[in-house]
């Protein structure tokens, strides 16, 4: 992959892709990533929350609301407009890169 572009890491990409469907809490994000990637990407909880904190700090996602379940706090994360633009740009970039290889020969 070329460096210095607007690309995001693969787990970040799947986190953003999962949040496009709406606000989700940590466990739901983890399950959604697993489904979207066909079980290929399964970040550990420590890694997932590291990604969520960084995305939150950069304003790509934000905390939508907090709920208390079984006496424990649960944050629901939501993708921001900046995050949506970022993941869409990344998807377009990957699509263009894929089309170089996958388009029918001679087309």
């Amino acid at each position, binding site marked *: 992959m070329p460096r210095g572009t607007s690309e995001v*890491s693969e787990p970040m990409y799947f986190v953003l892709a999962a949040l496009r469907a709406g606000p989700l809490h940590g466990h739901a994000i983890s399950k959604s990533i697993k489904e979207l990637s066909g079980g290929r990407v399964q970040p550990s*909880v*420590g890694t997932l*929350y*590291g990604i969520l904190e960084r995305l939150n700090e950069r304003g790509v996602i934000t905390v939508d609301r907090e709920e208390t379940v079984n006496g424990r*706090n649960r944050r629901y994360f939501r993708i921001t407009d900046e995050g949506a633009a970022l993941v869409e740009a990344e998807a377009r970039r990957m699509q263009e890169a894929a089309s170089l290889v996958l388009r029918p020969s001679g087309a």
Partner: protein
Amino acid sequence: MTALERRYRRLLLAYPRKYRAAHGDELLDVLLESAAPGRSFPELRETWGLLLGGVRSRIIHQARGSAWADGLHLGVTAVAVANLAVLLPYAGSLPLWTALSALALLATLRGWVRTAIPLTGVVAVKAVALAGGWQALGITLLPVSPSALTHQMLFQFGSPLTVATGYTVVVSGLLALAWRRRPVRARSWWWWAVVVAAAWAGPSWMPDDTTYPLSLSRVAVEIAVCGLAVMGAYLARDLRWALASGLYLLVTSAELVLHKEELTRQHLAYWGLLILLTLACAFAPFRQRRHCLD
């Protein structure tokens, strides 16, 4: 509380206290929901993820405020730890001076700069005098005998110049921080564990005829701490760890230069490794970004 929850709670100690208080239960909730039924031990990948995530979170948490002031304080703390580690094996013979040195380190660690300056200064006068074989601030029987931590006499391989270098770095750094007139952050209590490891002469690893032996435990703890500094510089893209490592390298190099005639391959390897790790701290903040959020 189940055995699995207890074990996960222990692993969450890797995270800073503030983060744990705010989000520890949330992480625990996800960890327990993700665990297979009947499981009592954490999965290896979850264990690794929590340890790495915790260290990363601690490092990011540290990289706040003025980089030069915090780097200076970190470097001064490391040298103050080394200064106390030199005196600690002789606490039985020098209880007052070891206690004063420990108080100086405590004041440095807590960020009480104005208290640390006179304490470090008075210990410096005594330490330099002892290294030179002079009497100052009271009579001390020389040479000062060791304890179980080491078998060498106090400052057997030191000189007034090298001892003065260490203390000068600490006092100068503290003066610069005091001049700044801003609060200095308190540092981790883990530094006390580093004092004990650095004070111990460690298992014998150099040939018996080595005239200037290196403590293996001290070398190990220095490399480990410098390794963490490189990790900090890499993750936070910040030069504070380079400044701190550079100050420590300066003090260590002064001692090695003094013994240049007695250096073996082990000494050179140790010196080279410290230089390499300090350079890594200096260059890591300028690494290429892997992605826009890196």
